[in-house]
């Protein structure tokens, strides 16, 4: 896909995703049924679960492309990892800022060590490490390799982190806890949830393509500048 094609696809995807989000918001406010025990507060579920999912997806893409980058040394793979990591960090930030705010409004507490939020917080820090390491080396090539290592180890660690956070939480159950979404969901909730997941994923992929295209342009510009001085 050419640069322009990527930008067009990216914009289209992101646009579609945003429309999807509008749909999700209207559905969750006006259409979907209210959960029995938690009431209206539960509807944050339709934003938080997809946001967490998208962060995981971004992480996975970043780690996979990082691994391929270390193996094949193709700059494009590193650019993809960068784009994914940025996207992931953005979604994580959104989730981490809206989560506590919602918690305060709905239940009176900002932070309850909810496993989803906690895992996202830790992923946010791993992403932070990714960028810090990437930008703090003398030789930029080294920074890219270091960042790739951070992404890979982070991805390997995430299952452990999630298990430990969930286990810890199960020991200290909080009355104000988001109901686990494993038991069968009523059909209407499922529809809204899936629509939301789909929309979030489209927004993420759209942003990912745009960011990747931008980075490709930047790399091309740097290469031309170097040839001019050589």
């Amino acid at each position, binding site marked *: 896909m050419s640069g322009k094609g990527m930008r067009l696809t990216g914009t289209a995807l992101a646009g579609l995703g945003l429309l999807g989000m509008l749909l999700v918001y209207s559905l969750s406010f006006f259409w979907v049924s209210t959960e029995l025990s938690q009431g209206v507060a539960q509807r944050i579920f339709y934003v938080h679960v997809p946001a967490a999912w998208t962060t995981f997806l971004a992480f996975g893409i970043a780690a996979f492309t990082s691994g391929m980058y*270390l193996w094949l040394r193709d700059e494009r793979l590193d650019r993809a990892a960068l784009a994914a990591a940025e996207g992931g960090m953005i979604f994580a930030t959104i989730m981490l800022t809206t989560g506590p705010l919602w918690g305060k409004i709905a239940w009176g507490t900002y932070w309850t060590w909810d496993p989803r939020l906690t895992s996202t917080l*830790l*992923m946010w*820090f*791993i992403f*932070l*490490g990714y960028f*810090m*390491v990437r930008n*703090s*080396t*003398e030789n930029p090539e*080294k*920074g890219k*390799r*270091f960042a*790739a*290592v*951070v992404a*890979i*180890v*982070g991805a*390997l*660690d995430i299952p*452990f*982190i999630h*298990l*430990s*956070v969930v*286990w*810890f939480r199960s*020991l200290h159950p909080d009355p104000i806890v988001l109901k686990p979404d494993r038991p069968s969901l009523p059909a209407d909730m499922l529809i809204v949830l899936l629509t939301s997941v789909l929309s979030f994923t489209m927004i993420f992929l759209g942003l990912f393509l745009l960011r990747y295209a931008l980075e490709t342009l930047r790399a091309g510009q740097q290469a031309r500048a170097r040839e001019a001085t050589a």
Partner: protein
Amino acid sequence: MSAYLGQIGAIAWKDLLLELRTRERVVAMGAFAVLAAVLFNYSIDRTVVRPQDIGAGLIWMTIVFGGLLGVGRTFHLEAEDGALQGVLMSPVPKDAIFLGKTLSNFVLLYIVSLLVVAVFMLFFGMELGTSPPMLALALALGALGFVALGTLFAAVSSGTRMGETLLPILLFPLLIPVIVFGAGATGRLLSGRPVSEVVGNIRMLAAFALMAVAAGSVLFRFVVED
């Protein structure tokens, strides 16, 4: 295979020999352990909380912070005269270098962690609990996981402008499982719970340590190449 193990041994032995000569890291880590326990004592109101209730967590936090001191300097030994270059240019596979360094770091940290437990028992009147061997195992597995990731990222951070200050930022999120399962197992053992209740935690610690050592072995070469 024996040549490979011999190379790992040579590197680990060299590190420990250097540590014996300079005693830099072990003194720093040991002093930290004792002082941390003292500070914790003064930071707790004993009329409100029993040290035994939070002892396991404090022990693991002390081990982690103290461990950072030690593992952060693991590549300083080689930095002085560029010795790491010399080792990298030798026929030793990069994963063997990693394993050798991890081994020596493990020995150091394990000794210090035993010291930490002893100090906390002394200062806070805690008992060894249900099963000292299990406790020793939990400490060993936790220390191994910590040290493996710590060695890998110490190599990373020493190649950056920020140096060691970057290490906690990189390591802490990744070490959550070690803290959760390690302190979880330790807390239960110290408060007299049966061994069956900690087996799950021990298994997780072992799986984590395995992941950390494997990941470090594979990825180290990408960190040290130039």
